[in-house]
Each structure stands twice: as structure tokens, then as C-alpha cells.
């Protein structure tokens, strides 16, 4: 059932939610870019299409303290850095980011379960928002994602002057019930018309025809494609793409030993584009940027699908298209692989 509030009264919904639990939403920062921030009274939700950094940070933060050791003489104390998360709401996530949670779940919630991730994940309720005005860099449709039906626990649309919501899961229904005082009954037909309108725009996007090739049975062929040398030839080896990517999930575990007698073990995002990624005693198995570059895209377009029933680990959010310093990105790679397949 559709419920709604006037868009100008959206903060009534936000206030009502935040009265019960912590609420995060996209907010414009001083540099004019949107980022997820905790809601405080009066804060306006960003009108931008997407946040600079993805929503994966909620479950898989860039830096995660894991355990702390303290030594006193021959005695070592061990402190578990985990604490049970409180319930919280992520408001205004886009369809691409919502799908990225599924991609990450397949990794972190598979046996053995990553309890740090699970802790944050299970306490979150996700309110998604349909994309009325997608960008030229958007290609979520290539992965079967519908920006007009963004899923999550509650999905929402801006329809004219109204903010319409529909619970999708039980958790979502619970959230809607908890704030029903500020909501009125919405109009299904109006939402359907909005969905139709968005579909028309999605049909006109310049990247709408980009399609991943199912290369699950051609792992080695793709791996050995001569295309990688050219595609990677000017890659700077920075980690901008990996760090803005909603599905990149590689991490490193390091010890911070700066304090006397204390070791703080943390994990942090790592990038397969870095030259010290998977560094071992015998050196790195990926000696040049070509191998590192190839790894990133093989992982997203071939290895992940092999392990996850054909699901790709790209959601077409377009962040890497916007942020790569040399504008070499997954769409260019997908197009090159498509040529190979023909």
C-alpha cells in the first residue's frame, strides 16, 4: 500500500523516524557533493542523484577496528572491539546501491559469516528512492536493476509535490507503521505513472545498450585477451575507482602499534589497483598494472558471476565513470569484452 507526505513536509517523516532510531540520509556538503550523514533536525535531504561515496560504508566502513591487545609485562589483555549495533535507517539510497548490498551480502554473509558486517547489516532498515532524473553515466539497467523500483525495505518516489512510500519487506512495514501519524494514503496510479515516466527516461540513456557478456565458461579466454594491455596502459594505479565503488569489497588487516604496549588491529579497504595488494613474502603475483587492472574487472565480470550464479558485481552506479582520473572505466572494459565475444 502506498503512503505519502507532501514533499515540502518530508522533514516530518525524517523527524518521526529519528525520534525512534538513528537516521542517515544524503546531505550536500560544503563542496556541493552529497554524502550520507546522520540526520539532525532541519537537515534537508540532498536533491542530487547520488552520493559521492557509496552506501557500502554503512556495513563495510573504510576503517574498522577489530581487536585491541595490551601488554603489561608477561600479561596480554585482549579487547574485542565489537559492540552490538543499534537499529538505524538508511534513507534515500538509490536502486544501484540497494543492489550492491545483495552483492556484498553474498560475500560477507556467506559461510564463514563476517560478524562485523552482519552486525551493521541486520540492524539497518533501508528506504530507497527512485531516480527521477538519471545521469548519462547510469547503466544499472545493464544488470537488471530498475531505477524506477528501487527495492530495499521501503521504496519511495517523488511524484510531483508528493513523497510516496511503499513498504517492501516486513521490516519496512514496521518502519511505516511507526511513523503512520505523519503519513496519509497515497495514490497507486500516480506512482505507476511516475514509474512509467522514469522508464521512458531510462530508455533514452546513452549507456542503455551496454550489456555484460556472460563469460562464465570463458574464464581463461577473457583472462588472456590481448585487450587488457591496451585498456590498462594508462591506468595510474590509484584506488579512486575501488573506493567509490559500492561493490568493491577487498580489505587489508593491519596492526597499529603506535601506542605504548598497545596493538590496535583494524581492517581497511584495499585496492587491487595498488602495487602492494596481495604482497607476500615472495613478492606480488601481479607484477604490472595490467595484471592489477585485469583483476579488478575479471572479479566483477567473471569470477564473481562464476561463484554467484551469474550475478555481476557491478551495479551500474557510474561513480567510477565520474571519478577515474583518466576516464578508463568498467563500461569501456565491458564494451571491449563485448567486441571480443563477437
Amino acid at each position, binding site marked *: 500500500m502506498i503512503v505519502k507526505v507532501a514533499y515540502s513536509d518530508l522533514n516530518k517523516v525524517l523527524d518521526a523516524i529519528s525520534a525512534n532510531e538513528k537516521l542517515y540520509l544524503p546531505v550536500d556538503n560544503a563542496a556541493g557533493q552529497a554524502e550520507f550523514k546522520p540526520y539532525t533536525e532541519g537537515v534537508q535531504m540532498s536533491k542530487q542523484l547520488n552520493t559521492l561515496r557509496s552506501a557500502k560504508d554503512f556495513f563495510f566502513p573504510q576503517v574498522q577496528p577489530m581487536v585491541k591487545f595490551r601488554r603489561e609485562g608477561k600479561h596480554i589483555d585482549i579487547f574485542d572491539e565489537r559492540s552490538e549495533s543499534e537499529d538505524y535507517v538508511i534513507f534515500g539510497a538509490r536502486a544501484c546501491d540497494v543492489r550492491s548490498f545483495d552483492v556484498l551480502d553474498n560475500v560477507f554473509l556467506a559461510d564463514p559469516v563476517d560478524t562485523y558486517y552482519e552486525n551493521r547489516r541486520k540492524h539497518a532498515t533501508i528506504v530507497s528512492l527512485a531516480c527521477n532524473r*538519471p545521469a548519462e553515466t547510469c547503466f544499472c539497467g545493464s544488470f537488471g536493476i530498475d531505477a524506477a523500483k528501487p527495492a530495499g525495505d521501503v521504496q519511495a518516489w517523488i511524484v510531483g509535490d508528493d513523497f510516496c512510500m511503499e513498504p517492501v519487506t516486513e521490516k519496512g512495514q514496521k518502519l511505516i507503521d511507526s511513523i503512520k501519524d505523519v503519513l496519509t494514503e497515497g495514490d497507486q496510479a500516480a506512482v505507476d505513472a511516475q514509474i512509467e515516466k522514469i522508464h521512458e527516461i531510462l530508455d533514452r540513456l546513452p549507456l542503455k545498450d551496454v550489456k555484460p557478456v556472460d563469460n562464465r565458461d570463458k574464464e581463461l579466454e577473457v583472462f588472456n585477451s590481448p585487450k587488457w594491455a591496451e585498456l590498462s596502459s594508462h591506468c595510474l594505479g590509484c584506488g579512486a575507482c575501488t573506493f567509490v565503488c559500492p561493490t568493491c569489497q577487498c580489505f587489508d588487516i593491519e596492526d597499529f602499534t603506535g601506542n605504548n604496549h598497545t596493538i590496535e588491529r583494524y581492517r581497511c579497504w584495499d585496492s587491487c589497483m*595498488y602495487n602492494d595488494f596481495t604482497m607476500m613474502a615472495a613478492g606480488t603475483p601481479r607484477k604490472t598494472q595490467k595484471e592489477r587492472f585485469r583483476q579488478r574487472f575479471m572479479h566483477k565480470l567473471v569470477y564473481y558471476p562464476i561463484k554467484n550464479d551469474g550475478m555481476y558485481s557491478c551495479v551500474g552506479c557510474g561513480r567510477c565513470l*565520474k571519478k577515474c582520473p583518466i576516464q578508463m572505466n568498467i*563500461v569501456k572494459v565491458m564494451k571491449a569484452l563485448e567486441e571480443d565475444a563477437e
Partner: protein
Amino acid sequence: MQDELIRRACELLEDGTVNRVLGWQKGQFVYDITPAVFTSVEEVKNNFVYNDFCGANLSKYLRSESEKEGKVLVFLKPCDTYSFNQLLTEYKIHRDNVYAVGIECYGKADVEKLRAKGIDCITDVKNENGTLKISTIYGEESVPAMDVMAERCLNCKSKKHVAYDELIGEDGEVLDSHRFDEVEEIEKMSAEERFKFWQSQLSKCIRCNACRNVCPACTCEKCVFDNYDSGAFNKAPANSFEESMFHIIRAFHVAGRCTDCGECSRVCPEHIPLHLLNRKFIKDYNELYGPFMAGAEVGQVSPVVDYTKDKDAEASVVQKGGAE
């Protein structure tokens, strides 16, 4: 201008002056241009592009390209020629293996500035006498090119090519730019305000290292921050570290070598104005040691390393170490 560059590149490839061309390659949109090496006339004709979005400075790629067999043609905008000279000064480029063609530049557009104006879903951009005509799937837009010009271009330091084998178009002059204005604003802040300013900026850092990897002055074989044994190794963006070390140390390290090309700020996904750190150093150099522009000439020595024992060194320092 693009046609002229393509014509000349093809000529130089055909007459054997060079065996490949370092330039900019068309993307899927008008703005997503990738640095690329072209090895045939056909490739140049089909894929070479030069437009308002060719901001990338190609000089750093010459480090590896000039190691290879044969001469490489490179197109350099005025500001790129400073990086080129600086790399030559540091013996990072084999000059004999490079054929440098200087090209005019009227300033490059910043696609993020277009987006900030609410212009999205861009399908094409044409520059008609200083006005950008933009096609989007939502309709047509028109913006003066100056309004969406990259900051570094609005404060262009020089239209003069300080190095080239040949020039296409006119050479310009060193400009009296306003590039230090913002530095002055920051200098006027109290120490506390200034700390707050940089803290708010640098705490956005995600340690993607794009600024470092794109920087023509960052040419170390192994960066101290990637060296596990250095004591400065850090992969995680810890606020205390980013604020006090990574960017500041990098700025110190490139001081006197940074040509203010502005690539660091162009590539920063978080829009941290890193160029301001470098400009502060340049401004201080100018004020303390007289006008100095890294890359203006090959073989220049930065003022802080250019000293002679007799003239510049404090006598007590020289003697104490037993140098005499």
C-alpha cells in the same frame, strides 16, 4: 584545432619522425577522454580527440614512454610544458626520444562544474566562440565557457610554451594570474581557523592516492607511504594521519619541483583543493628567494637546494660538521 593536430600527427608518423603519438583518446561521451598512445595513422584519425575536456597533463607518461624504442610525439599545452621541463631537469625523460609539439590552450572545462549547474545527462558539448552548447537527454543548454572553466585555467599561470620542438598555433605570455589570491585568504586566517579549514578539507581524504599517482613531480620508484618498513606506511585514512602527514609531507616533497599544473585537484574525488598547499610553497619561494617557477627552464635548481658554501651557508653550520 583538433583537425590540425590530427593532420600533423599523421604527417610525423608517415615521414618516420616518430613511431607513435601520445595524445587524448575519445571516450563514450564528449568529456571522458583517456590519455592514449596511437601507433598508426588510422588510429589517430579514428580515435584522437582534442577539445575542451583534454585537461590531462601527458608529461608524466613520457617517463615510461621515452624509455621505449623510437621517438614518441607528444602534444603539450603551455602548462604541460613546465612539467615536461621539470621532468627533464630531474633526468626522468629521455629528451632524444620525444618530439614535443606545443599546442594552444584557451582553458579547459570542468565537467563537474557543468553538473553543479544542474546540467546532467550530457550527450554532447560544442564550443561556439566561447559558449558551450550542451545537449542533454533533457534538452539543450548554453553556458559561457568561462563559467565552467577549471579553477586552474581561470587562474592560468602561463600561455607560454617553455619547451617544444614545434608549435601549432601561437605562443603566449606568462600571465599575471590571480592564483595566489586564495592562498592569501588562507594566510589571513588565524592559526586556529587555518587548522580548521585544512582539517575539514583533509579529513575528506579517502587515501585513493590519485593525487600522488597523477602528479608529475611524484616520480619515486617507491613512495614512502607504500613502504611497509618506512614507519610512514598507512593504507587507512586515519584523520590524524591525513591531516598531519600524508598531504603535508607530499606538498613538502614536491616543493620547488611542483609546477602548479593542478592535476592533483583535478583528480581528487573529494574535491580537496590540494593545489593550494603547493601554491603556498610557490608563493613563499617567490617572496623569500625572488621569483622562481619550477619548469621554466631545463636545469633550473630550486632555491632551497641552490646554495654555495661561501655565499649562502651559515658559516657555523658548515664548520660544525667538519666539512672544512
